[in-house]
């Protein structure tokens, strides 16, 4: 990888500038918007106050016409009390007599703020007898528009994250990587290698800089060739002179210096971010959409019986319990990713990552468009599987690109970039998808996903150079390795007590149970999205800090145990206090728990790879571990749906929490009982 630490100060300044302009713009826009709303709504509030005052004045006027004295009107206090109770925009309603003395008054208890008092006359027998005074609460609009503040906050957060993604990549691609490449080639020249030039055709100052370097290289090579020609013509000492030069320097062939194309994971980060962003947009409402479609299409849609072999399919479909069916879109998607990934791996090796990414965009876009058109649950399941094909291709293409452009020492950084793109897209996509679904409905969000996916392909061809094709490695029979791994207690313990339970928490509890619970509690889609966003946000905030903490004292086992324990407590808490705040707190705790355990599990696997992994290479062990995890992720939504049906939301959460907590205890016991790599050396002393 090129030296990506260059111009860090500039990158920080540019991102800070962009976020400052963004904040200023959105703050200004929000203020102006609120001002517009305030004025428009104030006029309507006045009309409403006029309607209420008119009604009160009429009733009081009729009583006064009958000769009832102003201060002896029976039931007025109660009537005004009802008005205040039913009209949340009014701070007070007062009935004053002809002298302006307040005779009857009702106030709404409120925290303060401005009140705009308006007055309407009360007439009796044709003369002014008093006035109705209504205090319109200036803050009332705020309560009606409270969602806007959240929308502004979410939009600001998402835009800031997108700015960070886009600008860092832009600066890297335009400045850092070319100058880093220049430094790399200067070092090569320092070692005597004049055979490479920078492959950069930019028209700006960076282009002029690299052109200057290329000119210097070209001048040396030109002078060398001219001198060699003269020496060959002169005869005598040419061979000795040439040998001395060849010993000390490498010159370019007559055709010219070879272009040196830099490689970096950053070239694929932006397309990957956009692709993930598109795929995360439906995250918060997918289980709800599945439920709606199932309710709309009934036990089995008519078209299912019409396809070849459809009657059997329709019967089988109708035999599946409704709660399992509703969980199938998520499970089928995860199953599709697991099934298609090996094929994608072979294609990546044969065709290169850029081509595979582009191929993957086609089923992804097709899946989104067909999901947009879907009006039954089987269609949703089918098209989500098509989506899974696209996701598998694109994610494998990205991982292949990272493998191609990193070295073993920089691979972790490459993987961190992949994870960062996924998590950032998770924050942005989940929240924006939910807000949009709230306003424009579920189906159009899939069209937006398709648009962003197409955008990712466009950015890929703009930013990402092709990586060299590699020969596909012959498939090895892995069953022996798998059995040996499963016979390793430490590996099996990590998988069963940590890997699979954490997937149950993520794909079952977080991505399936939580949206359904939040909907059940009466929350709008935007709120559901905001709650799920907290998870991704906390993963971003804590992932690096906690990974560093775990690495620092080799506390990977502790980190995984804490993550599991925290997840268990978080899930159980929802069982005990089944409300929106508990659900939000639980999602937040799961975010922290995931940050604790995700990197630590990988590190534990690698540390196991140093010792007792039954002779299986670490890469194969990790691959098998991830596959087994995905199996857990696939089953989790179905498991949750069955539990919800038979136990209800609260008990499902409680049972899940207790189950995960038991796994945490078992894992801790296993960590204490079984050595990681060598039974003679305690873990903490490594």
């Amino acid at each position, binding site marked *: 990888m090129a030296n990506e630490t260059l111009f860090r100060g500039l990158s920080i300044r540019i991102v800070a*500038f962009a976020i400052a302009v963004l904040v200023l*713009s959105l703050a200004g826009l929000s203020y102006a918007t609120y001002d517009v709303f305030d004025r428009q709504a104030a006029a309507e509030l006045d009309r409403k106050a006029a*309607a209420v005052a008119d009604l009160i004045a009429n009733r009081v006027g009729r009583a006064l016409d009958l000769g009832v004295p102003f201060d002896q009107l029976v039931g007025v206090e109660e009537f005004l009390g009802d008005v205040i109770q039913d009209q949340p925009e009014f701070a007070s309603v007062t009935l004053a007599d002809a002298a302006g003395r307040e005779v009857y008054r009702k106030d709404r208890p409120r925290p303060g703020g401005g009140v705009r008092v308006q007055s309407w006359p009360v007439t009796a027998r044709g003369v002014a007898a008093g006035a109705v005074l209504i205090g319109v609460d200036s803050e009332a609009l705020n309560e009606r528009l409270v969602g806007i503040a959240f929308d502004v906050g979410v939009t600001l957060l998402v*835009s800031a994250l997108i700015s960070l993604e886009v600008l860092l990549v832009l*600066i890297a691609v335009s400045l850092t990587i070319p100058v880093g490449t220049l430094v790399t080639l*200067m070092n090569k020249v320092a070692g005597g290698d004049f055979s490479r030039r920078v492959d950069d055709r930019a028209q700006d100052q960076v282009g002029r800089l690299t052109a200057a370097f290329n000119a210097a290289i070209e001048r*040396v090579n030109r*002078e060398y060739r001219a001198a060699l020609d003269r020496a060959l013509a002169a005869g005598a000492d040419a061979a000795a002179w040439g040998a001395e030069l060849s010993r000390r320097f490498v010159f370019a062939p007559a055709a010219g210096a070879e272009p040196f194309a830099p490689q970096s994971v950053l070239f694929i980060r932006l397309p990957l971010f956009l692709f993930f962003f598109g795929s995360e947009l439906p995250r918060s409402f997918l289980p709800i959409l599945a439920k709606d479609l199932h309710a709309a299409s009934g036990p089995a849609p008519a078209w299912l019986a019409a396809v070849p072999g459809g009657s059997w399919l329709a019967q089988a479909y109708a035999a599946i319990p409704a709660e399992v069916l509703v969980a199938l879109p998520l499970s089928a998607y995860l199953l599709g990713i697991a099934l298609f990934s090996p094929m994608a791996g072979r294609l990546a090796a044969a065709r290169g990552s850029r081509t595979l990414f582009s191929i993957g965009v086609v089923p992804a876009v097709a899946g989104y468009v067909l999901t947009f058109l879907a009006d039954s649950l089987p269609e949703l399941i089918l098209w989500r599987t098509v989506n899974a094909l696209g996701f598998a291709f694109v994610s494998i293409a990205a991982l292949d690109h990272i493998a191609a452009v990193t070295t073993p020492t920089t691979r972790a950084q490459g993987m961190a970039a992949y994870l960062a793109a996924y998590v950032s897209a998770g924050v942005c996509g989940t929240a924006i998808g939910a807000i949009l679904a709230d306003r424009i409905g579920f189906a159009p969000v899939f069209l937006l996903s398709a648009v962003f996916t197409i955008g990712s392909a466009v950015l890929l061809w703009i930013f990402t150079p092709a990586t060299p094709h590699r020969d596909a490695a012959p498939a090895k029979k892995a069953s022996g390795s798998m059995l040996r791994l499963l016979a390793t207690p430490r590996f099996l313990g990590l998988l069963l007590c940590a890997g699979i339970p954490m997937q149950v928490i993520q794909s079952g509890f977080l991505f399936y149970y939580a949206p359904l619970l939040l909907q059940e509690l009466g929350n709008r889609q935007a709120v559901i999205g905001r709650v799920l966003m907290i998870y991704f946000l906390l993963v971003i905030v804590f992932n690096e800090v906690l990974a560093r903490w775990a690495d620092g004292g080799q506390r990977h086992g502790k980190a995984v145990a804490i993550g599991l324990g925290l997840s268990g407590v978080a899930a159980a808490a929802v069982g005990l206090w089944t409300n929106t705040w508990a659900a939000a707190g639980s999602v937040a705790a799961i975010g922290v728990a995931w940050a604790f355990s995700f990197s630590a599990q990988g590190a534990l696997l690698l540390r196991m790879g140093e010792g007792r992994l039954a002779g299986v290479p670490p890469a194969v062990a990790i691959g098998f571990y991830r596959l087994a995890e995905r199996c857990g992720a696939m089953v989790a939504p179905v498991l949750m749906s069955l539990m919800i049906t038979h136990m209800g939301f609260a008990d499902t959460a409680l049972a899940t929490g207790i189950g995960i907590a038991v796994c945490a205890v078992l894992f801790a016991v296993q960590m204490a009982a079984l050595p990681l790599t060598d039974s003679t050396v305690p873990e903490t002393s490594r």
Partner: protein
Amino acid sequence: MRLTLRLFLAIWLIIAGAAGLLTLLNHFKFATAYADLVRSRFAFLAADLEQSIEAGLSLGLPVDQLRNTQAVIQRTKERWPEITAIRVFDPAGNALFGVGEGAEAAVPPAWVEAARRSRDGAWTLPDEHATTVAKPLVNAFGLTVGWVALTYSNAIVDGQVAGTGGLLVQHAAIGLGIAALLCALLLPLLLRPIWAEMQRMEAAIRTAGEAPETAQAAPVPEEIAASYGPFRTAVANALGLIRTAPSART
């Protein structure tokens, strides 16, 4: 494309996307909040009619026998011209009293269905052109004997919402203009030191093979400082050795 222009476009497009999204969301929110506010005003008027009619019902009269009901709804309709129709109907869907548009027509089945589904008897039914708010009429024995339904044109809300949408777009456009101006003015200032540094780098590299006295005298930027010295030495050595080629000696 120059980096400054790329950064300008990237920042501006992100801000435009955020402002566009926010404007869209705000517009939807305002439309909902405003429609709710208008609905609550007419719901209040409907509630007043409900109380007036129920005062008669409390005397034990059947709803279709309340002779002053037609006058009451007529008066309300005249007092509030935004109301397009007021109708009173029984649970079977028979129209009992009416004023305004469609007063003589049969009660829409959707109203009867909405009334049947309503939990507390009150309901709101918006359609393409108008919104109807209704309150149940409950007699002295707690029996729902009908509904008073008040209809107003959606134009009251739509016109205001459309006007507000236009204003929001104007504000967004002004905001984006200011953002563009800020970026156009400040980005070059932010990048100027980098371009100056690049020029020094370029000059240093261009003079790499020259004699020390003619070579770049200015300090080499830190980005390339560590590599520049060995690079320059290697270029000078290579050129020096090349220039000692045998033909040169003969």
